[in-house]
């Protein structure tokens, strides 16, 4: 066991992997800094590129993108009041007023430090919790797994987006598309409409790149055609004290950072809740605990620290359900499933036994990525600001080209490119109609697991649903699912704001 952990850590510090992690973090910060683009989008485009890397290199690169993107989103939020990613919206509440006061570098540096602390905390929790949870998960049979997947769908459908009904429709549609290809029982073609290329199923990357990246580009094109607002980028003051964060200032925010790190980690560990809600909860908790709550929203450094620590703490924790149960808790984790599968690894509790060295190498890479994030973020901050000046009519066509390239590279087929375009248009329509594309993608990823566990449970229970009472864990999860559906329906009826 110790040898496996050590071997994993040694793999991660190999020079090539360090370079790959640095490249991932750099790409993540740059993409995250551009308004409208975010880390999951960059991951979607980058997954096909990682096909040619080692498994650890590929995962380390994508995790670096995710971590860099988490901080990068705060740059445009602070400088332009236009968060690069939705989770940075809470950071902008105090970050932008600070920038207006001539302290954008101070705000961005505090965002960076808080982001790294929050992220490192959640990585440590992941490292400590994932393996014990996986041991528990291995004791579960198909009946329990089936019940758990249905529960995860309900939670994600209820918590993401504005309507439980629409969330469930999106999840069911995702599962439906996952059934196209070859059925697992008889190995016969299913819903392929005569296309031989479809017998291996719809590539996850066609859906990932299409719905996540290209559909966002189409939305940005629409925004641009409507005459999108050009926002001024604020400049830094000449006073040295306003360009950095002193130890005293950092220490003053430590309590809020620690509180937010815990909040973000808890939120991240639950499927469906995302970094956006974590950022606002962390910010709200800091405001409530402050002796000067009236200063929040007017450029308080603590507000930036609290929001950023909370949203970054989600990044590590959202791998807890993926590694311990095989269930992706958010869209980034769902895309990582694609990377795992490309390298012949099925994510889930058995990973610790079958690919222990890779898992611990990945954990080490996550910790290294945090250090890289700190170094690259600190020294490259002034340079990243220039990314914001690149005009949209240049960025968007280049992104379109990268999406087409990524879809083709996946399995070098034009059908995959065509499917990616079709899913991009579907994703655009879904976004306009407020159907959650996140739930759709997670439904697509979890579909095969649901079908397999369902068919096994069907045989074990001899097609008699009343036998469910013989499986207390599965029965409890089913009851929880029914209660959750009821709660979500009641909450919507009472008109409460949805989370995430």
């Amino acid at each position: 066991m110790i040898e496996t952990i050590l071997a994993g850590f040694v793999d991660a510090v190999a020079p090539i992997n360090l370079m790959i992690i640095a490249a991932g973090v750099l790409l993540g910060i740059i993409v995250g800094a551009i308004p409208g683009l975010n880390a999951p989008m960059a991951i979607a485009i980058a997954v096909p590129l990682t096909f040619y890397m080692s498994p650890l290199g590929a995962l380390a690169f994508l995790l670096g993108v995710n971590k860099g993107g988490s901080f990068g989103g705060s740059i445009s939020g602070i400088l332009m009041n236009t968060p690069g990613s939705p989770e940075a919206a809470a950071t902008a509440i105090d970050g932008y007023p600070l920038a207006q006061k001539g302290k954008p570098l101070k705000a961005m540096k505090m965002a960076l430090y808080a982001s790294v602390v929050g992220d490192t905390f959640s990585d440590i929790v992941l490292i400590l919790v994932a393996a014990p949870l996986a041991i528990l998960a291995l004791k579960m049979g198909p009946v329990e797994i089936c019940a758990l997947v249905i529960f995860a769908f309900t939670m994600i459908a209820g918590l993401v987006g504005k309507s439980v009904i629409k969330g469930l429709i999106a999840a069911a549609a995702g599962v439906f598309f996952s059934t196209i290809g070859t059925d697992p029982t008889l190995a016969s073609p299913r819903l392929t409409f005569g296309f031989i290329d479809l017998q291996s199923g719809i590539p996850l990357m066609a859906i990932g790149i299409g719905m996540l990246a290209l559909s966002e580009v189409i939305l940005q094109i629409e925004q641009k055609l409507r005459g999108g607002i050009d926002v001024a980028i604020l400049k830094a003051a000449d006073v040295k004290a306003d360009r950095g964060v002193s130890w005293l200032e950092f220490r003053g925010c430590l309590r809020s950072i620690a509180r937010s790190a815990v909040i973000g980690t808890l939120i991240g560990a639950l499927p469906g809740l995302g970094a956006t809600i974590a950022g606002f909860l962390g910010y709200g908790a800091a405001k409530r605990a402050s002796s000067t709550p009236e200063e929040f929203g007017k450029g308080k450094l603590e507000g930036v620290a609290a929001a950023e620590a909370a949203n970054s703490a989600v990044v590590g924790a959202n791998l807890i359900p993926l590694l311990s149960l095989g269930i992706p808790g958010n869209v980034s984790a769902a895309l990582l499933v694609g990377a795992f599968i490309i390298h012949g690894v099925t994510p889930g509790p058995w990973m610790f036994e079958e690919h222990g060295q890779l898992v611990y190498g990945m954990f080490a890479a996550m910790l290294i990525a945090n250090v890289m994030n700190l170094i690259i973020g600190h020294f490259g901050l002034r340079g990243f600001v220039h990314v914001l000046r690149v005009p949209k009519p240049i960025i968007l066509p280049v992104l379109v080209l990268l999406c087409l390239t990524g879809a083709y590279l996946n399995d070098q087929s034009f059908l995959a490119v065509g499917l990616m375009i079709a899913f991009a248009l579907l994703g655009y329509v879904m976004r306009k109609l407020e159907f959650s594309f996140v739930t759709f993608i997670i439904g697509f990823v979890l579909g095969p697991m649901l079908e397999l566990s369902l068919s096994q449970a069907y045989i074990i229970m001899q097609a008699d649903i009343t036998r469910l009472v013989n499986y207390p864990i599965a029965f409890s999860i089913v009851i929880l699912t029914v209660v959750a559906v009821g709660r979500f329906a009641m909450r919507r009826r009472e008109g409460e704001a949805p989370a995430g």
Partner: protein
Amino acid sequence: MRRADFLSGTLLALLGLVMVVWVIPAETFSGDEGEIAPAFVPSVTMIVIGVLGALLVLARLPVLMRYLGGLAGTLDAQPFDRVSLKVIFITGAGLFAALAVFAGFGYIAMGIATVIAFSLYLGRTNWVALAVVAALVPVGTYFVVLHALRVAMP
């Protein structure tokens, strides 16, 4: 979103029905007794989509009825106006045209055409910058993919 929900719910309910009754039986093999048939999961998901689509319609029906009866003032705006429909059709056509150029003339031709076409569509008029980006990005990507990833694109 209520009017859009009403329409999308109706379409989804109809889609679920058509898929369960005609498409899925025609495109799947029947299974053996004692195990789940290949059509089971696709059919269940389509039944779920159809039923939830109908529920969406029912949930929005009272507001629409009140509006039609003159009791409610206005309905919310349509999510698809002329600009968004234009975006769907022009961007969609542009993307499929890019795919056709990719398949027929290769990656670099497609890349140059895509960057120029989309930049012009978005109102870019700085020809020098456009020419530089349109030439450098596709050629650069092609060679990175060829040498770093060892994939020869058409």
